[in-house]
């Protein structure tokens, strides 16, 4: 109200030229509004991203080019010295192999099991909510607590799993001695935590699959398995890609589980389960105290994640394209018809 009266009184008292100028301004405002405000509306994300994502990324690159100790702070500019130092440390290479191995051992079974569980939960179960919430429970438990419990299970001499193995007459497994065994143990900790979470995401996607497709498939005589592979999997393709990419990023940054896997938390005597992120931590806060080298590791890890993320994007697209072939051609024909219409 107040604004309205103000506006009305102002042109009355003011000169007519002023009114036109005012109009020009409001027009300009209107134009800005149209052109700028969409950017303003989405700017909070980009500002936040610049502060918390882009700046640290750039600053890490800056640090990685300097001699930079934890307490001493910035030292001399050393160019790519930190990168060559890191590349010359055998532990770095070992940590890369460990990371990839644990990542494969965790992500692949994780996605497969999660899809299977989701498919089971998608059936008409009694007390469905109970089962659906049940699979999420491991996700609620703090990762450090999970790791401590599994640490007990996987203890070499007095652990529960080895006790069971000897009970049924098998040889105990050196969970902290054998490299592959330690990776399997750590991957199982990761899987325990993330399978349920991913299963729920898959379940949400499956619930969105139109039921008519299944009805049609049943009429065509398709069994459960055939329905799953020919309808469910192609329909949830985009969700699979999402889960694969997020679990890749997570899988390449495994830290809590390996840090808590043994008493020292630095990958064991052979560095058999030291992941790259743990190595990064050790370089910065461990005995080397070098934030410069740690930043170099961080950048190399970043590039690795980008490369692997891209590769598995291509792969997942390839995998599900068999089911997509018909759709693609349909889409293609649709676009051609559209362009024809435009012409």
């Amino acid at each position, binding site marked *: 109200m107040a604004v309205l009266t103000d506006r009305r009184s102002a042109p009355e008292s003011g000169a007519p030229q002023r009114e036109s100028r005012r109009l020009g301004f409001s027009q300009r405002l209107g134009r800005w509004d149209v052109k700028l405000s969409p950017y303003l509306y989405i700017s909070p994300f980009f500002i936040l991203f610049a502060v918390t994502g882009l700046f640290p990324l750039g600053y890490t690159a800056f640090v990685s080019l300097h001699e930079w100790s934890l307490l001493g702070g910035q030292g001399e500019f050393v160019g790519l010295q930190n990168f060559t130092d890191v590349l010359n440390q055998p532990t770095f290479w070992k940590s890369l192999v460990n990371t990839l191995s644990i990542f494969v051992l965790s992500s692949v079974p994780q996605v497969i099991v999660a899809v299977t569980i989701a498919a089971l939960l998608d059936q008409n179960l009694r007390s469905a909510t109970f089962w659906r919430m049940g699979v999420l429970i491991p996700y609620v438990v703090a990762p450090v607590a999970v790791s401590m419990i599994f640490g007990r299970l996987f*203890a070499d001499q007095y652990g529960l799993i080895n006790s069971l193995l000897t009970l049924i007459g098998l040889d105990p497994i050196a969970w902290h001695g054998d490299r592959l065994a330690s990776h399997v143990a750590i991957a199982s900790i990761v899987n325990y935590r993330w399978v349920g979470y991913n299963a729920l995401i898959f379940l949400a996607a499956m619930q969105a699959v139109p039921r008519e497709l299944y009805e049609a498939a049943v009429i065509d005589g398709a069994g459960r398995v055939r329905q799953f592979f020919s309808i469910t999997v192609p329909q949830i393709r985009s969700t699979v890609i999402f889960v694969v990419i997020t679990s890749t990023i997570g899988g390449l940054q495994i830290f809590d589980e390996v840090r808590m896997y043994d008493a020292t938390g630095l990958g064991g*005597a052979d560095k058999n389960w030291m992941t790259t992120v743990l190595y990064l931590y050790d370089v910065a806060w461990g*005995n080397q105290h070098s934030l410069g080298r740690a930043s170099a590791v961080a950048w190399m890890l970043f590039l690795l994640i980008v490369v692997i993320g891209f590769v598995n994007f291509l792969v997942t697209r390839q995998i599900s394209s068999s089911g997509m072939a018909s759709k693609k051609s349909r889409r293609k024909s649709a676009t051609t018809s559209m362009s024809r219409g435009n012409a």
Partner: protein
Amino acid sequence: MLSSTRTTRRAAARTLQATAGVAAVALALTACGGSGEAPAEGSSEDDSPITLKVATFNDFGYTDEMLASYTEEHPNVTVEQVKAATSDDARTNLTTKLAAGGEGLADVEAIEVDWLPELAQYPDLFTDLADPELEGRWVDWKVQQATTPDGKLIGYGTDIGPEAICYRADLFEKAGLPTDREEVAELLGGEDATWEDYFAVGRDFVAESDAAWYDSSAGIFQGMISQLPAAFEDPESGEPTDLADNTDVKAIYDEITGSIDDDLSGGLEQWSEDWTAAFQADAFATMLCPSWMTGPIEGNSGGVEGWDVADVFPGGGGNWGGSFLTVPASGENTEAAKELAAWLTAPEQQTSAFEAAGTFPSQVEAQASEAVQTFTNPFFNDAPVGEIFSTRAQAIEGAPYKGAHYFAIRDEVTNALNRVDITKSQDAEESWAEAVEKASALG
């Protein structure tokens, strides 16, 4: 609404005036009372009320009553203690905040002896605590540990970890060895005990028993390496000695791997799940035992009887662990904080800390005190642990030189031992070669 806020605000103003008045009176009173008996009082710049924070970890034995009694002596000072759960947490907190310019640090920060090689490289981050009045308060080597190469004292000693041998009398008996703690001390060589004696008795023991002689080869290595005056670096230059040419360390390494071949080792990593469980499983008979280790042994051995402490340590004395109080230079009240740190590490306070938390005092006077000397531990068959660890503390000749590379190289050798002892993934020579290679890549 309005009126109520107004009254509370007025009430607040009134209480503020009142407290200010009381404080002024109190200050005046203490100024009178204090001048006679507490000469330390005047050393803080003025008597305006301040709060000092003390950051510790685990349990330093500084009780609330003790801190409150400091306020009684210094009415303008309130002391708050911040406890971190583990020393690792405290270390990350300290180094991160020091790196950020000291923002958010406590006025008095506790540190462990193992952090000193790193911190001593940046003496400017800490207040120099050297004080002629406090000379002779601590055992000499404790002061030496916290003194930087340029002569600055960056920490006041709190506790130390003099090492004795803890043993299972019941397992000794089954293997036909003596069980009495004095006889065991003699058996292991008494005053002039050597590592050879220790391993020789171990070979006799394992011939008669299913249990191993000691828990962890890395633990033995820790004990032996601390007796070398300069294990991995040249004290003059601070440069690391090439591990390939380090005959002293190699000799220790060979002696330990030899004992592993003879099945003396339990093949356990200290603090691991297996190690904790092994206490219940009668897996080993002896342990190198710094004073603070009696706590974990008791904690892990619920229901197990037979632990005892022998007043002996191979190769002379040995110290493992111990802490200091430092005053970060970035604090606002460094003078007052220094005074508080000196008070907390005084023999009286450290004696009550020993009674509260079992931290063995580094102060000469506190070690000789009645409370420490008469202290016995019922779990260890009523062993007079206070007296035993005092004798063990006197056997320590000095602190070994530990430079900036010490822990990085030591950890490589420890890993090499673990590869032979625990994972059994390599033989002794192979594993040593890998340690040499990795140590040289540290750069």
